[in-house]
């Protein structure tokens, strides 16, 4: 049994296990913090930074999904700084990828009063062809937010197949197979656990994809 500590979240006194994350402590107190890359069954990569909170006395905002609570911490899950960061990240994301299949993210955009259009039109986007190379799922990396969930699910967090990794780096990063080979020529075993954890419809059961195509046109 770990000990319990007291802290303050959004002005509310909160008790939490000493090894809890801020996200867990907040959730237990009924306070919702938005997340994207975080998935309960996967190692938190803490890359999306949407769950950042303001921790009085700390220089930068803290990612709630991986930051451990501390006694007497005073934490704000909403503040002008937090909202600015979340809004800006969401706006930049929305100007980079296609979020049409990510209703939770679109709801977040509305909640944080995000206006991607203020960034203008002449922006670099990530654009990819839809990859249909097997009978089971399609990969539409226009919709990929690089949350890493699929890579983790394909690796040691779930499947141990190691078929998925990265091409490029920085803004030009994309999820890829070894030398960008078609899936059937990789170590993929088509478990679809990557599809199961994808939050934006970038990975999709081929039947769903085909049905959508049929309805759209």
């Amino acid at each position: 049994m770990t000990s319990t500590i007291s802290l303050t979240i959004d002005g509310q006194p909160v008790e939490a296990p000493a090894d809890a994350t801020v996200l867990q402590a907040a959730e237990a107190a009924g306070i919702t913090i938005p997340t994207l890359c975080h998935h309960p069954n996967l190692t938190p990569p803490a890359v999306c930074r949407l769950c950042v909170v303001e921790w009085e006395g700390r220089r930068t905002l803290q990612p709630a999904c991986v930051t451990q609570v501390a006694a007497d911490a005073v934490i704000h899950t909403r503040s002008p700084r937090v909202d600015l960061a979340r809004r800006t990240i969401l706006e930049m994301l929305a100007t980079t990828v296609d979020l049409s299949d990510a209703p939770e993210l679109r709801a977040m955009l509305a909640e944080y009063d995000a206006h991607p259009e203020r960034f203008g039109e002449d922006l670099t986007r990530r654009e990819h062809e839809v990859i249909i190379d097997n009978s089971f799922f399609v990969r539409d990396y226009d919709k990929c937010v690089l949350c890493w969930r699929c890579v983790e699910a394909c690796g040691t967090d779930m499947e141990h197949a190691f078929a998925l990794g990265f091409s490029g780096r920085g803004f030009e990063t994309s999820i890829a197979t070894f030398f960008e080979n078609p899936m059937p020529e990789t170590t993929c075993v088509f478990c679809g656990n990557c599809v199961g954890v994808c939050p934006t419809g970038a990975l999709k059961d081929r039947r769903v994809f085909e049905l959508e195509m049929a309805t759209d046109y």
Partner: protein
Amino acid sequence: MSYEPVLTARIGKIDPASLTDYEAHGGFQALIRAVELGPGRVVALMEEATLLGRGGAAFPAGIKWRAVHQAEGPKFVVANADESEPGTFKDRVLMEGDPYALIEAVILAGFATAADKGFIYVRGEYARAYQRLRHAIARCYEAGYLGRDILGSGFEFHIELRRGAGAYICGEETALFESIEGKRGYPRLKPPFPTQAGLFGRPTLINNVETLINALHIVLRGPAWFNSIGPAHSPGPKLYPLSGRVQRPGLVEAPMGITLRELIEEHGGGVSGSGEFRVALVGGAAGAFLGPDHLNTPLDFRSLASIGAALGSGAVIVFDTSVDMKPILQRIADFFAHESCGKCYPCQLGTMRQRDIIARMVAGQGRPGDLQLLRDIGQTMRDTSICGLGQTASNAILSAFELKLT
């Protein structure tokens, strides 16, 4: 000009390939002294000297040495020689001109912290430094400075020389660990810190090359000597890589806290080009522009922090009044967009958006809210990026707008 260089004293005077030459010029005296003192005393000396890390983050070196000294083995010492900050070439000059000094410093750090192995991670583009270090390490093994029972102390230590492969981010200490481990250079989440769980998950002392070389002189000359140089809050000798529009670009060793004016006038021979100073970029692309108002500001950690700038690596690039600053800003923005590793969203997206917006401004197609966008992006990157790359990627550009350089 009463200051006598110590860090660069041997450079140009000795044959960098020759171990005997190195030994003849005071080489390995610090290590011999350290062995006499014993690890605990060496660490104490490092604590007594107020040596702030010279890689840019200015973290007190003594605290790191103490933490790793106390940690349970196996543990490692890593020399961060992945010098990639634009305008910075100090570690290269040290490694090319005096390679044995770095090796001696790593052995000394290994001895003080009872580490099992040392790594020197040299920037991939620094082929000459890499070759000279490789040669020097082989000589040190032959001479018994590396291997078993070094200097009869019973201490066994090995150094593995590693090469980067073209990634600015690997200068970030945890990204550097990932790179040694054979992975993409993605910075790790902190905590845990390197002294707790660093390379291969073990306690690791990681210092910049210049920091490590300072340790040699602290052991030889004592903390009092060290602390007497420059300002009390951040003392010691400092290397200032000086470039751009100055008459004599080059590496300057001076007491910490020299002013920009002294650096340019006394060491650089004055501004070139139009001859009229406009601005200097201090600390490289991750640093900030300083205008004429700051010519007398001491170039030390605290003084620069107090005006919202940072000393960083100490690099100073000088711009005269004839320089069109727009392409300069575009280059800085391009640099970060190219070098962002892409791990966390604020930096992955922010560096590209910053680049896009600067591009349209440079092209005369800026939009009304563009400066606000740059500020929002900058604050978001500073507040939420995983590592220093993203946290500093907007500094120079925003400071340029502050100074109305465009």
